[in-house]
């Protein structure tokens, strides 16, 4: 090479033609509005699901055949906003792009990914979220528990479905853990460069 790479390559790099004009503040604002609209829509859907669940359990409590079922429905009703609150609190915070160095951002993402994996703490949170639901279901089940001798046959499909759901949940948890491990490995490679 006839010239040292430093200056020549820097000049070569910086002389590239730009493809599109710089964005105006109006264009950026429109994009920001689009992003915010999407985020608001997702939030509204989440809130809608909570309101619908609350309405459903309120209706069930109103038409409950006995006091025990009503208590179960009320437990579920009371826990709906609690569960929404826990899910809302567990949403990851946003990293400040301007204040964070790239390695800092990678570490931030790593911590977020690591949070998705199974741990004693995440299990405790899960139990805290699910326990009132199971308690409510148990009370409802006790309320509608058949007095007739062969009524348990009707409840058997529900119990089997519950069991299947739990097995699927455990399998899903294992799969997620594997995925989290892979992603953590990828991030570590990225970090090491």
């Amino acid at each position, binding site marked *: 090479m006839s010239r040292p*790479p430093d200056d020549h390559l820097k000049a*070569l*790099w910086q002389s590239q033609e*730009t493809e*599109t004009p710089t964005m105006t503040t109006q264009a950026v*604002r429109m994009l920001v509005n689009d992003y915010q609209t999407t985020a608001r829509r997702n939030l509204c859907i989440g809130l809608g699901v909570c309101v619908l669940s609350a309405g459903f359990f309120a209706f069930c409590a109103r038409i409950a055949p006995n006091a025990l079922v009503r208590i179960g429905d009320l437990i579920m009703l009371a826990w709906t906003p609690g569960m929404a609150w826990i899910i809302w609190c567990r949403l990851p915070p946003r990293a400040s792009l301007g204040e964070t160095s*790239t*390695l800092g951002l990678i570490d931030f*993402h790593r911590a977020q990914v690591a949070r998705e994996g199974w741990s004693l703490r995440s299990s405790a949170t899960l139990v805290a979220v699910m326990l009132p639901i199971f308690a409510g279901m148990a009370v409802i089940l006790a309320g509608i528990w058949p007095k007739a001798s062969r009524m348990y046959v009707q409840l058997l499909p529900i119990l089997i479905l519950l069991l299947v759901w739990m097995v699927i949940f455990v399998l899903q948890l294992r799969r997620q853990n594997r995925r989290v491990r892979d992603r953590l490995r990828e991030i570590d490679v*990225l970090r090491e460069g």
Partner: protein
Amino acid sequence: MTSTAIQDERYTAAAAEFGGAIQRLARAYEADADPRRDLVQDIHVALWRSLGAFDGRCSLRTWVYRVAHNTAASHVQKRRRWRPERSATLEALAEVADPDNPEAAAGERQALSRLMAIIQALGPPDRQVALLYLEDLDAAAIGEITGLSAGAVATKIHRLKALLTRRFAEGGPA
């Protein structure tokens, strides 16, 4: 002046000064035209948003490059989930022979293509240092943006220079 007006003013100044660098950076991170346009847009949006929190503790240049590189790194991460990207370290690239015919790489255009190919083949941290180096930032500024120590930046720049010298000495630009 309202805070939004200040944010707009800062953004306009930053976009005017660093708009070209942002596009060059996007080109180095994303080879396909359509996702690259999306990446440029994302960087501008992230920049505008972030400038609301800009407090002058670092220079505007450092801030802009941090936002741009961090957005690009997130973009690469997202894309890797759908389309795994093959990237290499500076050391690995240095060991691979250059397949190009030296005669074919005579002009500036070819030289730029070769440079781009080398940069796009690097893993994100090395790519980031290479880009900042080509944008003429010094080691201290690169360290501030990437979070790497000054020593690590100096080592990476040294290896990058050696790689580029070797590649371009084999049949580089005029």
